[in-house]
C-alpha cells in the first residue's frame, strides 16, 4: 500500500511528538502552578495529585490528537511534499499551530465576548501556517534548527509518557472501582 509506505517511522514521529508534548504539557503545567496556591488553601496533597493525573491524561489525549495531523498529511500527500521532511515540517506545523492556539486561548474569558474575529481569521492563519511549512524546504538553516531542536526535546518524552500512563491508570482505577 502506498499509504503504508508514507507512514512515518518511529524515529521520525518521536521528535514531532516531542514538540507537541512540550507545548501542550507546558501550557497545562503553567496553569496548574497558577492555580496551585489556591488549591493549597483547601485541598489535600492527594486531591492535588488526582487533579494532576486528570491533567496528564487530557494532555496525553491532546498530544496524540495533534500528532495525528502531521501523520495524516504525510500519508495523504505525495511523498516529496511531506514524508521526506516529516520531522522538519511536522515539528514546524505542530509548533505554529499550537502557538496559535496559545494566542487563541489567551482571549478566552467568561467576562469577555467570545473572540469570534479570531475564529473567522483562523482559516487564513492556518493557510499561512501551511505555506510556511511548505516553504521551509527553501530555508536550509531553519530545517537544521528544527531538526536539532525537536530531537533534543525527545528527552521530555521519557518523563511525560510514563507519568501520563500512570495517571491514566489512576483515573481508570478511580472510575472503575
Amino acid at each position, binding site marked *: 500500500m502506498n499509504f503504508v509506505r508514507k507512514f512515518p517511522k518511529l524515529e521520525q514521529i518521536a521528535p514531532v511528538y516531542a514538540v507537541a508534548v512540550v*507545548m501542550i504539557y507546558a501550557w497545562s503545567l503553567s*496553569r*496548574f502552578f497558577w492555580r496551585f496556591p489556591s488549591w493549597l*488553601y*483547601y485541598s*489535600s496533597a492527594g486531591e492535588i495529585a488526582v487533579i494532576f493525573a486528570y491533567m496528564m491524561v487530557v494532555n496525553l489525549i*491532546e498530544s496524540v490528537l495533534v500528532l495525528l495531523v502531521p501523520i495524516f498529511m504525510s500519508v495523504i500527500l505525495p511523498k516529496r511534499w511531506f514524508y521526506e521532511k516529516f520531522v522538519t515540517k511536522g515539528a514546524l506545523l505542530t509548533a505554529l499551530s499550537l502557538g496559535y492556539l496559545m494566542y*487563541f*486561548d489567551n482571549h478566552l474569558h467568561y467576562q469577555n465576548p467570545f473572540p469570534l474575529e479570531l475564529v473567522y481569521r483562523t482559516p487564513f492563519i492556518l493557510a499561512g501556517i501551511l505555506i510556511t511549512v511548505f516553504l521551509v524546504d527553501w530555508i536550509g538553516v531553519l530545517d537544521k534548527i528544527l531538526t536539532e531542536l525537536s530531537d533534543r526535546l525527545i528527552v521530555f518524552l521519557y518523563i511525560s509518557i510514563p507519568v501520563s500512563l500512570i495517571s491514566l491508570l489512576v483515573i481508570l482505577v478511580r472510575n472503575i*472501582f
Partner: protein
Amino acid sequence: MSKISRRSFLKLVGAAAPAVLFPAVTSWAEKNLNQGDSSKPNVIILLLDAMSATNLSVYGYPRPTTTNLERFADHATVYHSHYSGGNYTIPGTASLLTGTYPWTSRALNYSAGVKADLIGDNIFGAFGEDYHRLAFPQSMMANFVVSQFQDDINTFLPADAFGKLNFLLNDYFPKDRNMALRALDDFMFQMQAKPASLVLGPLQWSLYYRDSARLATKGYPMGLPHNSTYPIYFNLEDLFGGITSLIPALPQPFFTYLHLYPPHAPYRASERFDSKFVGDGWWPNAKPVHRFSDGFSETKLTSTRRRYDEYIASLDWEIGKLFDAWEAEGVFENSYVIVTSDHGEMFERGEARHTTALLYDPVVHIPLLISAPGQKIRHDVHAPTNAVDVLPTLMQLTGNSIPTQTEGKLLPGLGGVEDFERSTFTVEAKRNPAYAPLTKATVAMRKGTYKLIYYTGYEAQDSFELYDLAEDGEELRDLYPEAPEIAKKLREELLETLLAADTPYIK
C-alpha cells in the same frame, strides 16, 4: 453509588410525566416504584440559590415578588429571622448539608468542599438507607459540596439535567464526580479563566459558543437564564417541568435536595415579568457607601435590584405551578416541603450581589418556609435560626439519629422552642486558607435583636459594627460606639467562639 442510572432515571421521569399532566391516569412509575415505607414522611428541600429574604414579599418586601410563596406560607411555618451559614454557595450549602458552621466544615474557599472527616456526616448519609436520596445541585458551586457526598446519594442528577446544553464533563465520571468536576470542569476546561487544556479547551469553548448562540431565547427578552461561569443554559419552564415530574416518580420515602441556580445572577426574567417593576414608584432607602464595597453607583444598584426582583417574580410563578401540581398529586400530604436559600444578595452601600466581605442582612438573611405533612395553617417564628438547624430538625422529624458534630438546634415549631437569646453565626472567609486560623474574615453574630459584625484582616485594625435589628432593620445606625456594654458582651462571645473554632488550626 447510584441505584438508578441517570439515563434510566430520566426515562422514569418521562414515564411519570403523564401522571402530572393527567392526574386521573395512574402512571407506570407510581405502580412500580412507590411501594416503600409510607409511614415515614418524604422530605423535599427546594433551595433557590442567592434568594435574599429581603427581596421577598412573603417577608414584607414592598414589591409583589412572591405571591405564590405567600400562598405556600398559608400552610407552612415561616421563619422570619433565618440566616445562612455563609455569604456564598460553598459555605452556605455546606452549613445546610452538614449542620455545621463554615469554620467547622472549613468549606470556606471557592471550589472547595467540606473537610474530609465531615464528609461521612452529611445529610444524605444521616437519612440512611430507608430513604431514597436524590440530589440535583444545579448550581455548580453546590456541586463541589454535594458531589463529595455521592456515596450516600442514590440518584445524582447532574447540573445540566434539565438544561439546554450538555457541556459538563464530570457527568461522564459518575464514580469520581467530585474530582472530575474539580480537575476538568473547574480547571482543564474552566471558563472563569483561560482553559488549561490547550487544544480541547478552545474546541469546547467554540462548540459551546456555537450551540449557545443557536438557543432559542423566546420568552426571555434578556436572553435565557444561564450559569455565568459554567456551560449551563436553561429556561425556567423546562427546569420546573422536570422537577414537577420528578417527585411522583420517586420510591417512597424519599429525601430530595433540589438546589436550583435561579435567582442567581445573571438575572433573566421571563417575558411575563420582564420590566414589570419599571416605574412602580418604589425606591429603596439610599445607604452610605461602605469602605469595603466595589463602589457601584446608586443608579446601577437600583436597576440591578429591579432586574433581580423581576427574576424572583418569574421564579415564583414557576414555583406556584410546581406547588399546584404537587398539591394535585397529594405531595404535601405526606411530605415536608422546605423552601430556603444558601445566601442572599445585596444591592446597597455601593455593593452588588454577594461576592463581598460585607454581611448585612440582604446577603445573609434567607427565607425558610417549611410545610409539614398535611399542615393547613400558617405558623410564624421570629427567633433567630440558622441553616445549620435544618439537618438536626429533619433527623428528629424523620426518626433518624442526629449526627454528633452538628452545631444546629431543633427549629422552633418542629421540635424546638423559640430562643431569642441564642447566638447564630455567619462566616465569610473565602480568602483565608481553609486549614488555618481565620485571619482574613468577616463574622456576623445574631443574638436576640442584636447583630454584631466583625471584620478581621481587611485593614490594619480589626473593626466591629453593632445593630439592633428590632429598631433598625436597615442596619443604618452603628451602635458599637454608642452601646459599649452590649458591644463588649457580644464581642467577647463572638471572639471566644471564633477562637474555639480556630483552636485546631493554631500551631
